[in-house]
Structures are given as C-alpha cells and as structure tokens.
C-alpha cells in the first residue's frame, strides 16, 4: 500500500493541478485558451500592432479595398505594398481603387508611424510594421478602409480594447453582485431566498434589448466617452449578475448538505471557518467557469448595443461601432470588407464558449 502511494505523484496533487490536468485533456478548450490570451494581448498592444492612426480621416482614400503585402519581387526579397490608383468604374460611375503595380512602397518592421502612448505611460511612434518612408496618401490598408478613409485593420485592433475590457469590467461587477446576493440567498434561505429568487426571475423575464434601449436612452448625451463606457458596463452587469447569483446559490445549497461540511460542524468549527475553509474552495472553480461563460454574453451585449447605436458612440471604437458601418446593404455591396469586423467577434465568442465549457468540465475534478 505505502509503496504504491509513495510512487503516485497524483496522490499529493492539489485541486489546481488536478483541474489543470483535466483541462488539458479538452483539446478545443486548450486551444481556445491560447486564442483568448492572444486577443487580450492584442488589446494590450493594440496601438503597437496598428499600422495607421485609427482616427485619421481622409476622404480621398474612402472605401479602399484590402491590400496585400508582397514579400518578393523581381529583385528577390523586398516586402512592399503597391500604391493605389483611383479610377472611375464605367458601369456604376463610382470611384474605385486598383493596385498600381508600378508603384512599390517598401514595408519594414518597427517603422515610425503615428504617436501613441504605450500602456498609457511611454510616448512613442514605433509600430510593428509600417512604410519605411511615410506617405501622405498611400499606406498599408490590410483590410481596406471605411467611408472616411480610416484603416479598418487598425480600427479592429484598437476596438479589441474596449470590446474585451467592457466584458471583463461587466463580469467583475456582476460577480460582486452575484456572489453577494446569491450567497445571501443560499446561506440564509427562507424569505430572503424567496425574495432574491423572485427578483432574479423578474429581471430575467424582461426582454433585454428594450430594457437596454430604455436604460441607454436615459444616458445624457453630454457625457464623455469614458462616462458612457462605465454606464454601459453597469447596464450590462445589472442583468448579467442573475446567472452568477444562481450558480453561487446552487453551490451553497448543495454544499450545506455535504457530509464533509457537516463533519466540520460536528467537530465544532465556526460558521466562518466552514465558509472559508470548506465551502469557498469548493465553488471558486465553478464561479470561474460561470464567469468564462458569462464573458462572451457581455461582449455580445456591448456589440449589439453599439451596433444599434445605443451603446458607445463614435469617436469611441468598438466592434459594435465598426459593424454599424456595415448596416447598409448598398455600402456592403461596394465595400464588403467592412463586414470583416464581425470575424473577431465570432472568433472570440466561440473561443470563450469552448474555454468556459472546458473549465466547467475541469472545474470539479472530484465530481
């Protein structure tokens, strides 16, 4: 007995390690973890990765189609983009742009571009890629430009910051509300529980879009971007907390009846000790899983609000605001690349869902 026990590393593995081992077996969730991490690092280094100033407007380069970077030409390795040439489409009489193969603009790493503040601390103008000699009109537009000639690629990168952080902040707020109210509900039971549960049911029964519309319409339009941002997070989390409160309450009710909790009470442990030592560690993993499933819902909420013009307003940049441009079918027919702003939304939502799934399965390695 002791021989096999001593050999077994798993025998002395704690909860964290067991959860991790089990999580790693869920391939899709494991990949999703990296995708989510990638998105958040993009959010942190958005300005560094961006090529053009996301706010820079120039009508002379409106609706520029996506450009590719060419790595080789006749002379060998020579990364460059072709300049764009404007011409009139003789069928629609619209201004269209085609690449001009004779005009080569060399591309380098760590080029100088617009000025920004890295982490809000260091002022710099270094970007990951850029033209070696900045031009007035031509540039690198990997995903094309919108009506006002703003670079979609850079805008999508910068939008990541607001769209992903709004999810985090809202979930944080929901978590506080959810754990507090769900905990009270599960711990005290009786009338308090009844009241909290009915409130949750009422909130959940209200259709969300009209509710958001009502709340968002109440925001004064004199508010700054930052104020609106926080107001929106609060609006989103006012609804989001209900799900988390239910998870917490459910765990409380289940744990109260567990033999090991009763055992702790029978040896004379205080309520506080039972909560901190036995109950809390048993449901943190469930809460983390619930959070990772709540995050995509929050991100979607912000995107739909902004898409409908009820959330953030330009000049703020979020995925929802970018998609606002793609609302018009006529615009889309001429500039279909504007829909590309939906791709990161879909990818990050899927990744979060798989991640949440994996975490939920791994959350209780003893179950």
């Amino acid at each position, binding site marked *: 007995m002791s021989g096999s*026990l001593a050999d077994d590393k798993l025998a002395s593995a704690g909860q964290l390690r067991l959860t991790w081992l089990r999580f790693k077996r869920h391939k899709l969730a494991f990949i999703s973890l990296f995708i989510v991490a990638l998105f958040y690092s993009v959010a942190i280094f958005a300005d560094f990765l961006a090529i053009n100033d996301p706010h820079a407007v120039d009508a002379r380069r409106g609706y520029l189609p996506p450009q590719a970077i060419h790595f080789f030409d006749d002379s060998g390795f020579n990364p460059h983009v072709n300049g764009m040439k404007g011409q009139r489409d003789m069928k629609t009489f619209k201004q269209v742009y085609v690449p001009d193969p004779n005009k080569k603009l060399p591309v380098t790493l760590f080029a100088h571009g617009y000025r920004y503040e890295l982490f809000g601390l260091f002022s710099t103008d270094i970007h990951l890629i850029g033209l070696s000699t900045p031009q007035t009109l031509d540039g690198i537009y990997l995903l094309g430009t919108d009506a006002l000639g703003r670079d979609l690629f850079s805008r999508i990168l910068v939008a990541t910051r607001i769209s992903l952080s709004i999810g985090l902040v809202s979930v944080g707020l929901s978590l506080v509300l959810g754990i507090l109210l769900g905990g009270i509900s599960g711990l005290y039971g009786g009338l308090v529980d009844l009241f909290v549960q009915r409130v949750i049911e009422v909130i959940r029964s209200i259709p969300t879009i009209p509710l958001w519309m009502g709340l968002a319409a109440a925001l004064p339009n004199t508010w700054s971007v930052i104020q609106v941002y926080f107001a929106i997070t609060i609006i989103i989390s006012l609804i989001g907390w209900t799900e988390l409160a239910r998870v917490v309450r459910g765990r409380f009710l289940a744990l109260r009846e567990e033999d*090991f909790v009763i*055992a702790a009470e029978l040896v*004379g*442990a205080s309520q506080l*000790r039972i909560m901190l030592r036995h109950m809390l560690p*048993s449901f943190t993993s469930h809460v983390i899983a619930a959070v990772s499933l709540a995050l995509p819902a929050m991100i979607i909420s912000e995107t739909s609000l902004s898409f409908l013009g009820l959330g953030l307003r330009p000049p703020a940049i979020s995925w929802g605001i970018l998609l606002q441009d793609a609302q018009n079918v006529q615009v889309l027919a001429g500039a279909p690349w504007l829909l590309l702003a939906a791709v990161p939304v879909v990818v990050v939502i899927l990744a979060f869902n798989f991640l949440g799934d994996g975490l939920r399965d791994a959350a209780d390695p003893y179950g």
Partner: protein
Amino acid sequence: MNVLEVSGLSKHYPIVAGLMRREVGRVRAADDVNFVIQKGETLALVGESGCGKTTVARCILRAQRPTAGEIRFSPADGETIDLAPLSRRALRPLRRHIQMIFQDPYASLNPRMMVGDIIAEPLVVNGIPAAQRQARVLELLDLVGLPAVARLRFPHAFSGGQRQRIGIARALALNPRLIVADEPVSALDVSVQAQIVNLLLDLQDQLGLSMLFVAHDLGVVRHVSDRVAVMYVGRIVEVAPTVELYATPRHPYTRALLAAVPKSDPDARDAAEAPRGEVADPANPPPGCAFHPRCPFAIDRCRVERPELAEIAPGHFSACLRATELPV
C-alpha cells in the same frame, strides 16, 4: 454509569402544502425513542431503510434539533447535560465529546484538503497548539493503520476502506467519550467491512469508547455490539443484549430481520419469516402496532392497540403484545 440517556426523543418533519404553507401532516421519523448507552458499551441501532435510525443518530449529534425529548449526555464522570434544547453556540464546546463516523467515506472527507489537515481539523478548531497537532496526527494515523506519508496525500488517493480509516482517525482526534457511527461499513466491500469492524473493536478496547452503531444489517452488528435496539417506523420495538436477541428474539420484526441475514447453508434459509410487504409510511403509520400488516403473528388486538416497550426478561424489552407467546 451511563454516557448517554435518550428519553422520549421525537423528530417530526411537517408536511406543508399550498400557498400559505399550511401543515397538512407530519412525518414521524423518530417517535418517543428511549435508550441508554453505558460507558464502554456499544449499542447497535438496527432497522430497515427509512425507519428513523439515522434521524436518531443525527439528533444525538445535534446535527438536527429534535422535536421533543431529552438527550442527557455526560461529558465527564458525574456530569450530565441535556443536549436537546441547546443552541448552536452552546453546543460548540460540547461537540468534541461526541464524534461521528460517516456512512459514505467519499463524501465525508473534503477532497480539497490533505489527509493530515483533515485529521488535524478537530484539533485546530479546538485550539490545540500546532506543535502537538503534528504528533497527534501521526499517532492517529498509526492507530488506524495508515502509513505516516498518508498525511501529505489527498483523499482521492485512497480506497473506500482507507478513507473510512481516515474518517475514524478524525473522529478519534479529540478523544471523544461517545462515537456515533452511522452505517460505517455499509458502503464498503465485504472483505473491507471485516477490517473496519475489527479496527473499531480494537479501538474500543484500547480507548474505552462508548459507541452508538447504526446499521441495517444484523450480520455485522452481531460482532460489534453489546446490546441491540431494533427500530421500526420511528419507534424502538425491541432492545436486548446481543447474544439474547439473536438467540431468542421477542418481536416478530426482529425475527424477520434475523431471517433476512444471508446464511451459507441454503437448507437453513427460512423463507416464511422474511418480512412481507413494504415498510409502513412514517407519515401515515397503520393504527395499533405499526408492524401488524406485515406480521405473521398479528391478532385483532394488534390492529387497535399500540404495545409499549416492556421488560419481558431482565434487560430484554419488547414492544409486542404477544412477546412471550412467540415460538422460539
């Protein structure tokens, strides 16, 4: 001298219905239960599922508050205190004297704590200094036959029998006067059951423990207990010293339970005595003796008159109108 005297213990669960949560009935999980446990003695509490034996055990541990009755416990020689009316706060200093061994060795150990911490928890909670805790944990592991390295492992590394040993070590940590074992072996394999039963017997010898041993199986009880109390639908129907109960059961229900114990000789099996029908509903027990619908000896009186527990031989109590008429 008695470590525990239970008198008139009842636990009723109200059945509520409707919007106003009106009480429409009561489940009498335990009804007027009386027994004593002497120092160093093991009393077995036996009955079918749902007869209220676990309820009685949990009331004594005050994991539940009894509806009525007294639970007089003596935490030290010459001292008695009624646990039944005490508040949660008042109970805390007394808890160390009564400890429990759980039925399910998988649910009763916190999977997130190392075995050493699980066993040390009663010591921590009751303010034993850290220096003594370590030594005591090692001593306890040795006592229940586990290697010292076990304290650094998590419960998931152990088998059911080993986990039950850990549970026993935790129960013994504070040197309790009374152990309440709620079906401590019924979740284990038969071969492991014997090991755990022997361990409990050894420990009782060494430590002079008093024990309430709850079981549904008369086979195991025979080896463990000094006296046996048989419960049926919330009431005790027979109490007797173990040897006497097995030799001359004085209640038809006890006879039926004994007949249900598996025997190795197929010819010796006694089909006629096995209990017929279902256990009565404790929310709606039959009038008279609760056992009469299943009893092969029932007479008309049994349907109207509820027999009280009466001493029919020295130390042998039975709640049957025909206790002395039963064939031996």
